[in-house]
């Protein structure tokens, strides 16, 4: 019988976050981080953007991007702190901060996406 470990679940979330962020973030970042602010492209009108955001599918996709991506960060950041800084003795604290942060962030994402007018 396989013992219950949180690791497989965390790794699945890490991987899922890795994939969706790799698929969606480059283009979103190019558009909203550089192209619109620098005026390379005309940003979408407020009405259009609101309409897009109001679509439940958009909000579902965005949640599907935000939540796993935050867990991707939490998982990787935790290991980077272990390996890069050799502070494994702070194991529990780091885990609480990282995964706790991801949970809080996911809750915030859910709240914000739910409350799009």
């Amino acid at each position: 019988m396989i013992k219950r470990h949180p690791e497989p679940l965390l790794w699945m979330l890490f991987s899922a976050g890795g994939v969706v962020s790799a698929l969606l973030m480059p283009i979103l970042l190019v558009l909203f981080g550089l192209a619109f602010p620098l005026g390379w492209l005309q940003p979408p009108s407020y009405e259009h953007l609101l309409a897009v955001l109001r679509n439940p599918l958009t909000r579902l996709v965005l949640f599907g991007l935000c939540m796993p991506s935050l867990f991707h960060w939490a998982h990787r950041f935790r290991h980077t702190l272990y390996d890069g800084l050799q502070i494994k003795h702070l194991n529990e604290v780091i885990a609480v901060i990282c995964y706790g942060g991801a949970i809080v962030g996911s809750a915030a994402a859910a709240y914000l996406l739910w409350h799009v007018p």
Partner: protein
Amino acid sequence: MGQRHAYTEYHPRWLRRPVSTYWWLQKRSYFAFILREASCIFVAWFVVYLLMLVRAVSEGEMSYRQFLSWSASPLILLVNLVSLLFIVLHAITFFEAAPRAMVVHVGGRRVPNGFVGAAHYLGLLAASVIVVWILLGA
């Protein structure tokens, strides 16, 4: 096992060399690894940035305008430029690693890793086209 035997435990002092805290600076490939790992910070940053955009849009047109002008400030531009570099690094390394975890069989034959990798890039292209079409095209 020899270990069950007491004599193999007997030995003069062995030399143990602990790993330096800065091991990841000692080799180019280790440094590339740590950069890849650091990309997760920018993934998290972009989630925050995206949620700020969502909140701004939810709060009304004024907030949206403010968000756009804030995003054009030099500091935020710089942060996003760096983020983009790291996220591209993340995408490339993740697409490189993914086929090594997934061994896909089609009709009893193993699909070459190159195909699986290429499929990921096609996915990236498709996702990008759809995003652009939704935001700008329709």
